[in-house]
């Protein structure tokens, strides 16, 4: 009797060991995979933090051209040829002028910054860049002077609605 039980215990013990280790390695391999994935995510988010530039700063610098560059909306004295940064020539406030000033790529430009420009006093209608789809992420405001065709200079506010990026181009 005793030798039979001893043989049975050995076999059962071996089967139990194998099953135990199989279950252990199933759980351990899942945990190890999660740890490695977590490690990769921590490193990549650290690298992203090191190289991140706030979108507001980028948009602010890109949009400087609207009020400071004579090839955009900035007023240029026709006699002295002096450009007045921060002063908008109302006669230049057209969609054509904005397209010449800032235009993104036709196909993939929705991934870049796009803008909608409005004057707070609503003297003229708003203007939009070519891949603007009303998906504003934030707004910039700038105090500007407006030079009207009559020669009058008036204080106003330029409101810049910023669309940083959209995931895909909306269907037309």
């Amino acid at each position, binding site marked *: 009797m005793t030798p039979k039980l001893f043989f049975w215990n050995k076999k059962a013990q071996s089967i139990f060991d194998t099953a135990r280790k199989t279950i252990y390695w199933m759980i351990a391999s899942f945990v190890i995979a999660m740890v490695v994935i977590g490690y990769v995510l921590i490193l990549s988010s*650290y690298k992203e933090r090191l190289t991140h530039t706030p979108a507001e700063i980028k948009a602010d610098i890109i949009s400087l051209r609207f009020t400071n560059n004579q090839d*955009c909306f900035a007023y240029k004295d026709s006699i002295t040829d002096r450009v007045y940064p921060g002063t908008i020539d109302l006669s230049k406030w057209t969609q054509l002028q904005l397209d010449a000033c*800032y235009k993104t790529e036709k196909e993939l430009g929705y991934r870049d910054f796009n803008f909608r420009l409005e004057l707070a006093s609503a003297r003229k209608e708003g203007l939009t860049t070519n891949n603007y789809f009303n998906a504003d992420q934030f707004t910039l405001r700038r105090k500007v002077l407006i030079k009207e065709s009559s020669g009058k200079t008036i204080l106003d506010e330029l409101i810049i609605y910023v669309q940083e990026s959209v995931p895909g181009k909306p269907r037309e």
Partner: protein
Amino acid sequence: MNKQGVSILMVIFEILVVIIVAAMTAKIATTYGQTESVQAINIAEDIFLMINALAATPGDAIVEYPSNISAYTIVMTPEKVAISGFTGLAVERTFHLPDGYRADGVIEKKARLCLEKKGRNILLEGCI
């Protein structure tokens, strides 16, 4: 089945798994730890902002990049700027200049970088 043989196999398997996981994490850390790619990204972002600032400047201007960039090759075209270091991988940034504006220049292994705006041309060159 030889129980001792099976347990030796299990030990070998476990040691192999430890070595593989350690090697994977070391490789991942080395790849991310290459400071060159972080610096190249920061230089690309800075040059992108500098170009946009120059596009907004009326008249002529010159600006110097305040870091040593001798480890990098920088190529600027009218649509983008590309920075590559010793690994050969390039970091690119796209910009959009007003109509009639041109941007170009190549700089290689020079310590000081200057961006100069002359009229409607933006030039990338080494500083004098």
